[in-house]
């Protein structure tokens, strides 16, 4: 057989094994997709989604543009490894095809220098390009080693602690490129077929070593190189490196609008195995930053879920603030996956649990606008009073859903995983909203807002957070503010900002009331107050520490008043603040222009 040597066996065996496992995984996952996901795929394939996906694959899977944004050095490291290796394969294949003709076996491309028939004394342009690419990959490997020692220099305070299979794959990967360099250099010492790097090293070797020794070392190195590749390929589908290939179908599926949901499903596998365990999610986590809890972050959650050893401790101990999700370079739906893991664990049918809600109606008043304060707002009566004044100033007739206490919105239950039970509560509330004939539903609680918008499917009823509603009143001129010179700083509640994308409305309102200064972290990077209902593990002292750290940042802005738009956040800030703390509705109510003036 042409271009064959027995050292290629480890490589070939590893390659076959790897592609077989990957193919099996993908086929199985696709096969198990729910029919609506399959329909979405068939609908999307022949649309612009496909070329967009192709471009995204290039920009993310190969170039890692998002990681560049986290830290350029980190980005370069990922890009040099992924894109560099990709180019090595592509250029190697072209070179082999040119030199050996089409139809040569796979290993002949990969180990081309070994099988290279001709001697190119002096100038083989391919060899120069290949050496350049190898140098690029090697620089990535060096950075990866460096990251192990000094992650801070690459913008990461903490890196992931890896499992055994990851360490095996990682070790093999680290060896692959230095071994390639060594093998090609020794080959160049014999064949003089190297570029500036391998050729140069080859000349050096040839000058200083006995030819027999060179030949012996050479054959050992090619064996080792092949073995390192084979080892990496065998470990790869079971390690974090599965992400290399999984991210590609994930990008396509996502472009075809396939998403994870309340319940676990086959698509989740694409997301879970697309996690490269880069660990970028660790640093943004306030459980890590403020409490030193370092084993519950999304990377560990995905890892444990993938290997089927997810513990309650890891699953429950998350604020679901979403700070990691916005940073994830792969764009994995971390909160959704965590939610559906919780759902899978605890959900019970509970068909009659909330039957007691039937027939209860604690609401009062009537109007096209419904106001749902939310449970927590009942404990911040200033907000409630302020909303009353704002409604009155705008001349709005209001149906008060829960001023005298009523049902919960259902989201806290959903966050704990009890989706079916939450659904019962939602149905009851929906009936209430429908029965009272409202067309707008205003809530002061971002937790309620999110669930009203995403799970209630309230047809004919527009759901607004009070920040949105107030801004609308201001824009319509139904209310007006007396601007003052107070300096405000605004805390973005997780559920309002990252959760519902409401960043600008509160800032516009505060801009009308006074001057606004931003804390160090704001908008999508804003800190969590620590009181999140999604976390049932941390105790009061821990909540307090998270809240204190975040409050300190707000106080450091030099503002005269801290403003937020969530009752839970307000309570958390008040516990720690020395400055006055207000809900945005209070600022508005205090600054309302009395009509006629």
């Amino acid at each position, binding site marked *: 057989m042409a271009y064959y040597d027995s050292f290629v066996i480890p490589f070939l065996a590893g390659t076959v094994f790897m592609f077989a496992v990957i193919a099996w995984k993908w086929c199985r996952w696709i096969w198990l997709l729910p029919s609506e996901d399959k329909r979405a795929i068939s609908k999307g394939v022949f649309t612009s989604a496909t070329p967009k996906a192709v471009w995204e694959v290039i920009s993310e899977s190969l170039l890692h543009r998002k990681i560049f944004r986290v830290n350029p050095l980190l980005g370069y490291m990922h890009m040099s490894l992924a894109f560099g290796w990709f180019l090595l394969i592509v250029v190697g294949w072209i070179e082999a095809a040119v030199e050996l003709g089409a139809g040569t076996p796979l290993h002949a491309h990969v180990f081309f220098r070994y099988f290279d028939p001709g001697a190119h004394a002096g100038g083989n342009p391919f060899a120069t390009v290949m050496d350049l690419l190898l140098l690029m990959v090697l620089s990535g490997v060096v950075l990866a080693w460096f990251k192990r020692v000094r992650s801070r220099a690459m913008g990461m305070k903490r890196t992931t602690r890896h499992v055994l299979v990851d360490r095996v794959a990682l070790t093999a990967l680290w060896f692959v490129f230095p071994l390639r360099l060594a093998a090609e250099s020794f080959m160049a010492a014999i064949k003089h077929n190297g570029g500036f790097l391998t050729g140069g090293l080859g000349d050096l070797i040839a000058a200083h070593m006995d030819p027999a020794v060179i030949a012996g070392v050479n054959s050992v190195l090619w064996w080792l190189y092949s073995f390192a590749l084979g080892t990496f390929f065998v470990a790869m589908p079971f390690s974090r490196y599965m992400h290399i290939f999984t991210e590609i179908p994930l990008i396509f599926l996502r472009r075809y609008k396939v998403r994870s949901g309340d319940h676990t499903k086959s698509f989740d596998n694409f997301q879970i195995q697309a996690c490269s365990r880069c660990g970028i999610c660790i640093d943004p986590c306030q459980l890590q930053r403020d409490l030193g809890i370092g084993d519950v972050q999304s990377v560990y959650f995905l890892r444990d879920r993938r290997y089927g050893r997810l513990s309650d401790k890891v699953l429950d101990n998350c604020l679901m603030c979403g700070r990691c999700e916005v940073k994830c370079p792969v764009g994995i739906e971390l909160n959704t996956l965590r939610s559906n893991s919780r759902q899978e664990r605890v959900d019970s049918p509970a068909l009659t649990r909330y039957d007691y809600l039937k027939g209860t109606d604690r609401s009062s008043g009537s109007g096209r606008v419904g106001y749902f304060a939310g449970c927590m707002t009942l*404990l*911040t*009566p200033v907000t*409630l*009073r302020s909303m009353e004044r704002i409604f009155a100033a705008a001349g709005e007739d209001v149906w008060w859903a829960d001023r005298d206490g009523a049902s919960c919105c259902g989201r806290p239950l959903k966050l704990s995983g009890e989706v079916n039970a939450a659904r019962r509560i939602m149905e009851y509330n929906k009936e209430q909203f429908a029965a009272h004939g409202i067309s707008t539903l205003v809530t002061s609680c971002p937790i309620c807002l999110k669930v009203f918008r995403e799970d209630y499917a309230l047809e004919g009823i527009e759901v607004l957070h009070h920040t949105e509603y107030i801004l609308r009143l201001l824009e319509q001129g139904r209310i007006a503010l007396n601007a003052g010179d107070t300096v405000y700083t605004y805390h973005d509640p997780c559920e309002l900002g990252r959760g519902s994308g409401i960043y600008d409305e509160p800032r516009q309102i505060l801009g009308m009331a006074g001057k606004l200064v931003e804390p160090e972290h704001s908008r999508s990077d804003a800190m969590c107050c620590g009181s999140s209902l999604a976390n049932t593990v941390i105790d*009061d002292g821990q909540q*307090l520490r998270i809240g204190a750290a975040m409050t300190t940042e707000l106080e450091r802005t030099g503002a005269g008043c801290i403003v937020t738009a969530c009752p839970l956040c307000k309570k958390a800030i008040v*516990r720690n603040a020395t400055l006055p703390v207000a809900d945005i509705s209070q600022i508005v109510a205090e600054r309302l222009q009395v009509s006629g003036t």
Partner: protein
Amino acid sequence: MDKRVVIIGGGVAGMQAALALKERGAEPVILEKEERLGGKLRDWHRLFPTFTPAAEVLEPLREGIARAGIEVRTGAEVECLSEGGAVLRGGECIEGGATVICSGFDVFDARIKEEYGYGIYDNVFTTVDVERMFNEGRVATAQGGVPQRIAFLHCVGSRDEKVGAHHCSKVCCITGVKQAIEMKEMFPSAEIYNFYMDIRMFGPGYEELYRRAQLEYNINFVRGRISEASQTIDGRVQIKAEDTLVGRPLKMTVDMLVLIVGMKGGSRNVAFAGSGGLTVADNGFMQPQDSFLGNVSSGRKGIFYAGTVTAPKNIGESLNEGVAVAARVASYLGL
């Protein structure tokens, strides 16, 4: 040695300490941030458990100070401690052979417990407001009416993790009982409810007063902490609690809700500690050398404590510490 003693704070402990020191031959100087001597007691009407008018305690002390010719600097707010004395706002240093810190406590700001609606609802008051009304001789609802139903809530700002107060303010239980009785005397037809978690009657005559409140004044004691309040359409206050002895939620509407606010460590404590090398205890009060033989000593040479600067105390205890600290200071100065 310098016989001058700097006394920070002209409340009951500071005045008593000054009088006792003067008797022992020292030259005390009282630094009082307000315009008059008396501290928190100036705002108080009558004292538990005997209903003694606060003036009967304050006036003899004030007269004594005047008679003894003790130097008093009013309007003198102490910023921090200096070597051998105190630094006033404005930078002036007052120095002596010893310093006695009698700066007392701060009243808990009830607005922090937003769910009770203080500062939001018209008819939510604190015990401090009630004493002021007693002093003014007119207690009425915000609408000017006669209260027919009054609820007192114990432990506001005390024993509450959520406001960072693990400690018991000690005197509020009896204050609640005293004010409930005074309210009942003022409005015999009013229904009065005290909502409590525990009733702690530690002092002589306290338990007896509690018993009289129940038996003679028909004050109702409900074992449950109010969790939230809201204003009704007619401006009254609706409160919610659990009647824990029955095990059911309870709600009622009252004309006045009185929050029995607790004591917290003085706001200057951190500054004193920083400048004087002293320790602030976890509860925010100053940490005395020990709780027994050194309870008026700071552990730092020449710096002493008296009164509520170190812990919640009643008037009698604060007065006693004034005498105790004088003895310690006198022996320190070799008088």
